[in-house]
């Protein structure tokens, strides 16, 4: 495969992970109109917990399960302590600071107890040397499985949201909490569950990325959160297909710039795209302008 082809393939795969992160942000955005900027640390935490359990002599899958569960619980706790009290003061944007604060606290906590050294993350899905031949083209098995998992989760989520009563309840809570409540929807529970789900998604995304990088440290996740955020904005905040499109677009741009210009420019390209998008089309590629109440 050509160099450009390889870059694009890698870009699509990491882009699908950005889409997962963006989806996690979308979920909490729907439920509360806020974003959990501590999600980067949840990705890190999931990977660190998985490594700890694995190093303790247990199965890596058990470790991943524990890591994802911890991420889900902490996401729900973040909502209860860092978001709910703040949004009661109507119109307050304080959640930007408090959710970021939770993230920084988790980072500090991990570097205090596990040191700031990078921990080796075990290969659980194939090894970096495994290849799959598709139509005579050799593709990295790890990248491919990450793409499949991320795509499957995005599709499942879209189905859940459109086809189930609870998915519609989430849309209802996003649109009008009082109306949802008088329709019999347990609004608090829906909000808490969406934070749990966003934590689970962050955990899965963290594990998938740690799989590629091979190591985790306390700072892991912060850049990823930024890429996920940019993906969400490019696609249109709150739009599932937009998250996927935005993530993959961003992934490809990142890898092409990294491959032809410099890997140091990968971050710059994310911010450049964010700026262009906000200037040209703030509602995102697939976003709709919000329905205004007449």
């Amino acid at each position, binding site marked *: 495969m050509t160099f450009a082809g390889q870059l694009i393939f890698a870009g699509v795969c990491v882009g699908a992970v950005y889409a997962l992160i963006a989806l996690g942000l979308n979920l909490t955005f729907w439920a509360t109109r806020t974003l959990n900027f501590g999600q980067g640390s949840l990705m890190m935490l999931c990977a660190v917990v998985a490594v700890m359990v694995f190093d303790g002599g247990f199965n890596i899958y058990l470790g991943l399960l524990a890591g994802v569960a911890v991420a889900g619980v902490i996401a729900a706790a973040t909502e209860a302590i860092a978001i709910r009290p703040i949004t009661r003061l109507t119109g307050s944007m304080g959640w930007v600071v408090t959710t970021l604060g939770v993230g920084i606290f988790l980072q500090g906590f991990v570097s205090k107890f596990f040191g700031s050294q990078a921990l080796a993350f075990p290969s659980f899905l194939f090894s970096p040397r495994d290849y799959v031949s598709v139509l005579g083209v050799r593709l990295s098995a790890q990248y491919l499985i990450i793409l499949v998992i991320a795509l499957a989760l995005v599709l499942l989520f879209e189905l859940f949201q459109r086809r189930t009563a609870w998915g519609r309840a989430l849309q209802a809570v996003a649109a009008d909490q009082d109306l949802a409540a*008088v329709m*019999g929807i*347990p609004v608090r529970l829906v909000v808490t569950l969406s934070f749990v789900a966003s934590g689970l998604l962050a955990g899965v995304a963290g594990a998938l990325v740690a799989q590629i990088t091979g190591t985790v440290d306390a700072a892991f996740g912060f850049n990823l959160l930024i890429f996920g955020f940019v993906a969400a904005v490019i696609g249109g905040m709150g739009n599932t297909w937009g998250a996927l499109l935005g993530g993959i677009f961003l992934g490809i741009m990142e890898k092409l710039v990294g491959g032809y210009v410099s890997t140091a420019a990968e971050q710059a390209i994310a911010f450049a795209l964010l700026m262009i998008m906000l200037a040209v089309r703030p509602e995102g590629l697939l976003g709709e302008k919000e329905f205004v109440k*007449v």
Partner: protein
Amino acid sequence: MLELKNVSVAYGSIRALRGIDMVVQPGKITAVLGANGAGKSSLLRAIAGIAPVTEGDLLYRNASLKPYPAHRRARMGISLAMEGRRLFRHMAVEENLLLAWSFGPRRTPFAQAVRSVYDAFPILGERRTTKAGMLSGGQQQMLILSSVTIREPELMLLDEPSLGLAPIIVSQIFDFITAYAKARGTAVLLAEQMAVMALRVADHGYVLRGGQVVMHGASDELVKADIVSKLSAAYL
């Protein structure tokens, strides 16, 4: 069915209702009349559980409602149609009905329940895939009312279902409410500014002013007491 005892509602320091006593009976339509800001919506929202009750008690089937949050009250058979065209505007007509039905008691299968809605309001059937936000005002009001009836409530709280509608549509909607309540024994609490219209269908009425009940009684007594012109004087 529902009994309010000395109920007060306040939003922070703004007191919207003071010491309301009220009785709502099954199979009967009880009107709540009053000018803008009299406290009609606050009363209905307090019963539904989305306005802060600061004093008094609300008894529903002889038990206090106070421990129950709004969604639990909704499942106990209390259903509120809010004022101001509140529906899920980005969802289609049928999606709105499905959502209302999904989190209700679901006594009737959805296919059958939705058919009786379309029988009552054929225009909603014709526009079942239209986004609710794209409907006309009258059609939106029909959908809001249907989102309540599809839950087969025991107590319906209707907040100004006539607002901004042509008289012909208002009578259609009021006729539907009357027929529905009589046929099923549903208790109806109807908040209205249009006292003439409301008293024509209601059995009883309460008149609110400045958050207090200033008069109540059977509809014909209220008509005799010339409540209609007194209310229009209050608008000025």
